[in-house]
């Protein structure tokens, strides 16, 4: 005897889902695993004496650590702080979601608040309120996006092709990094050239060691930097080998070279570094953000970033990531809102994570989106990657939300990829950095990822990188090389981006370049004040977003039907014989076909020729010694009524209703219209053999038998999403051919090319 199971096997099913690869951490504030609050978090407090902060969140001036000190001296606006700190946190929280309270007013309040107070305020909001407040508070009106461009081989040719691809899809910023750190210069040149293909204005950063990154910027290849990390505890900061002053100095250095720059912070970094002081993730991040505003950086990349995965293991962690992004924009910082490191193996959690940002909009929704395949992402896989880019495009279309990306045609992408690789080859040849073969070029242009390329290896890239560095090659040399080889448009585009640094307009908060113009929080401020205000997707932009590939329309349906028409003409011939009447012949089963059946429509949704369906049904009926008789109804296209009407004409009282799309029903004369004998409602998965069985069963009913109903096995496919657009269009063709008083028509069916 079988032993009784000690487990409901559904758990085994659940064990096999990708979700169960995710690990979940128990809430444990003492050990740093707490999203919004911890007993160790200080109560908000602020004392100002003689215009100087002498007590910040419970810490006296004499005990200030570096971070407290920096916040007290450089963030807190002492002129207003006492007044702002006195406003109850719940009242400020309500103002954050009140469309009548202006963003500028709230920004002013934030500049007088301590980290503990800021954290306390946003802790009053639920997830929806956080998303709404984020939408209201983000600095620039027009949303944007950032993408990663890297590959597993540091292959410059692929970097160029993928940079051009990312630019084509609309990324405002692209970011690269290396598998081998010494390849930074090669990566920089490759991406700079690739990003100049197709259009001008995409900002580019090469994430590398602090000093080297600045040098690459000074050589003109990169136009922004963001891996200037800050931390919320002093010990973590020191372990990160910096201080608030060294990072602020770096910020000034970037400004002095006309290079856009933002800091990086985010929940979980202190936890991962082992110096969390038992504080909540949100409180520590509030410290990081106050620090950043005090440093005078224009923006931040936050929302977990490298710490996002560990944050997502904590209860409320994903909400915390949203809350810390809200803190950033509330403090008036540009926000590249995370959504980069992949926080989960569950596609449902991925979709849920991105949605609030997509509908709320963000300066840069992802920081970055993996524009390449997961395995090619040298930062580690992103929340969304090359594999899922089209999913994101569809989400934009679903929600009429601008995620900063635009669908591009296959043809255009291929053209741009080739152009980018050829441009880089030209630069390499002109500057004697390499002579890529035709085979290398071809392998890269069509490759989805580096597994498919026969191109440069990491070692090759190192040699190129070294040569660029040794010979002090600058962007001017690259521009000239492009021009010498006829890549004038690319040379112009590259120059346009380098020229940005002369005026420095793109150093202001939330600056990106659109259509050759710098837009930022200064000249494109978010002034949301309720429905109809703030960023709205314009009609032309809506059309761009909607233009995903392979959209179906009725013209397309008719075109595909026309392809099958000729073949059907060779297989079947329908001859109308005038009005059809009741026949008293009890051996007769009537098959009622729909108005467009074999006239405008020629195959079922499942792809079976109508001649085959009708053929097997007729054969099955005849096989029982009965007579199949085909009648076309034109007063209805509805399956049930086709079946019932057919049954009423049949001497046996049994009829089959058959729509051109393949939906079929067995009906009996005296039944209610929708109370049929058997129904095939899932035409897409109904096979020819099922139709044969349906014919056989109809015959069985006519003979007074009680057959086993035919069941078309359904395995949970989303039939509606796969087929309903086509079904609705096809059915409209049917209904358009109906006429209220049209009489049933006797049809002689002749199967051509058959012996009988």
């Amino acid at each position: 005897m079988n032993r009784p199971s000690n487990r409901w096997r559904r758990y085994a099913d659940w064990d096999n889902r990708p979700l169960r690869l995710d690990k979940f951490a128990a809430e444990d504030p003492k050990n740093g695993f707490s999203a919004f609050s911890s007993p160790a978090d200080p109560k908000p407090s602020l004392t100002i004496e003689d215009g100087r902060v002498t007590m910040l969140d419970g810490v006296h001036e004499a005990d200030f650590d570096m971070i407290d000190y920096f916040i007290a001296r450089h963030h807190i606006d002492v002129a207003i702080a006492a007044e702002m700190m006195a406003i109850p946190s719940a009242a400020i929280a309500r103002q954050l979601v009140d469309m009548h309270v202006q963003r500028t007013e709230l920004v002013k309040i934030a500049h007088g608040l301590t980290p503990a107070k800021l954290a306390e305020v946003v802790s009053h909001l639920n997830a929806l309120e956080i998303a709404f407040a984020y939408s209201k508070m983000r600095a620039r009106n027009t949303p944007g996006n950032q993408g990663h461009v890297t590959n597993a081989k540091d292959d410059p040719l692929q970097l160029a092709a993928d940079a051009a691809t990312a630019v084509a899809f609309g990324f405002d910023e692209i970011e690269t990094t290396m598998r081998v750190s010494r390849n930074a210069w090669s990566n920089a040149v490759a991406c700079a050239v690739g990003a100049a293909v197709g259009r001008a204005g995409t900002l580019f950063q090469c994430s590398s060691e602090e000093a080297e990154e600045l040098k690459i910027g000074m050589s003109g290849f990169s136009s922004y930097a963001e891996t200037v990390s800050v931390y919320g505890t002093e010990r973590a900061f020191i372990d990160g080998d910096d201080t608030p002053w060294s990072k602020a100095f770096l910020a000034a250095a970037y400004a002095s070279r006309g290079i856009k720059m933002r800091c990086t912070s985010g929940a979980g970094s202190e936890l991962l570094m082992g110096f969390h002081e038992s504080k909540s993730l949100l409180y520590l991040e509030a410290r990081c953000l106050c620090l950043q505003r005090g440093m005078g950086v224009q923006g931040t990349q936050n929302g977990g970033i490298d710490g996002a995965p560990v944050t997502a293991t904590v209860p409320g962690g994903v909400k915390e990531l949203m809350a810390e992004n809200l803190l950033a924009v509330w403090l008036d910082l540009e926000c590249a809102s995370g959504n980069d490191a992949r926080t989960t193996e569950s596609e449902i959690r991925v979709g849920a994570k991105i949605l609030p940002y997509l509908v709320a909009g963000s300066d840069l929704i992802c920081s970055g989106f993996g524009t390449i395949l997961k395995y090619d992402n040298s930062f580690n896989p992103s929340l969304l990657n090359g594999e899922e880019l089209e999913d994101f495009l569809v989400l934009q279309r679903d929600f009429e939300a601008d995620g900063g990306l635009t669908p591009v045609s296959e043809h255009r992408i291929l053209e741009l990829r080739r152009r980018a690789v050829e441009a880089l080859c030209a630069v390499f040849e002109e500057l004697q950095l390499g002579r890529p073969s035709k085979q290398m070029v071809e392998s890269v242009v069509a490759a989805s990822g580096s597994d498919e390329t026969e191109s440069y290896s990491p070692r090759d890239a190192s040699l190129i990188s070294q040569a660029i560095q040794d010979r002090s090659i600058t962007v001017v040399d690259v521009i000239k090389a492009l021009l010498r080889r006829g890549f004038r448009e690319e040379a112009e585009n590259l120059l346009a981006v380098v020229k940005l640094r002369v005026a420095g307009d793109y150093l202001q908060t939330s600056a990106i370049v659109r259509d050759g113009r710098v837009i930022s929080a200064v000249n494109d401020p978010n002034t949301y004040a309720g429905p109809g205000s703030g960023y709205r997707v314009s009609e032309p932009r809506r059309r761009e977003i909607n233009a995903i590939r392979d959209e179906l329309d009725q013209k397309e349906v008719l075109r595909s039907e026309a392809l099958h028409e000729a073949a059907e003409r060779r297989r079947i011939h329908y001859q109308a014989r005038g009005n059809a009447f009741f026949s008293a012949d009890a051996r007769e089963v009537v098959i009622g076909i729909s108005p467009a059946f074999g006239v405008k429509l020629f195959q079922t949704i499942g792809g079976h020729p109508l001649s085959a369906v009708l053929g097997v049904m007729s054969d099955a009926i005849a096989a029982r010694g009965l007579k199949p008789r085909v009648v076309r109804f034109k007063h209805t296209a509805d399956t049930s009524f086709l079946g019932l009407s057919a049954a009423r004409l049949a001497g046996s009282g049994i009829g089959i209703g058959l729509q051109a799309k393949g939906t079929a029903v067995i009906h009996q004369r005296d039944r209610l219209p929708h109370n049929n004998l058997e129904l095939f409602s899932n035409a897409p998965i109904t096979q020819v053999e099922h139709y044969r069985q349906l014919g056989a069963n109809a015959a069985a009913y006519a003979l007074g038998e009680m057959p086993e109903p035919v069941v078309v096995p359904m395995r949970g496919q989303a039939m509606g999403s796969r087929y309903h657009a086509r079904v609705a269009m096809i059915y409209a063709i049917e209904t358009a051919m109906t006429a209220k008083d049209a009489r049933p028509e006797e049809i002689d069916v002749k199967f051509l090319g058959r012996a009988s």
Partner: protein
Amino acid sequence: MRDKLTIKDYPLSEKRPELIAGQRGRKLGDITLDAMVSGEVQMEDLRITRQALQYQAEIARAAGRPTLAENFERGAELVDVPEDVIMQVYELLRPGRAAEKTALVEAAKVLRRDYGAAKLADFIEEAAEVYERRGLFTYRF
């Protein structure tokens, strides 16, 4: 004395191009591909000036961003500071690089004296005070 710039002057490259020039005085409109090919435009012409950063600081302040403005002003003071000096000072500001306070105070003095970088010098002196109080002037193994 001229009026301070406001957000109406932004973006400078569109609204006030006459105010903008590269390091060697070349106007934005004269930085062209052709000038680059002939060798007239070099990397130096593609560098922001102290003046342009001061303008951006004024705009930032007018937009209600005083801390950003201060960063631009510190940046302005670094425009003429050579890269190797920038990297030296940055390195010195990192934890444990300076063995004692005097190294930072000296760096501040040099910036103030040789490059007119008063705000940066103050900033570095402030760091020196805090580092000392927090015990950062210790060798990290």
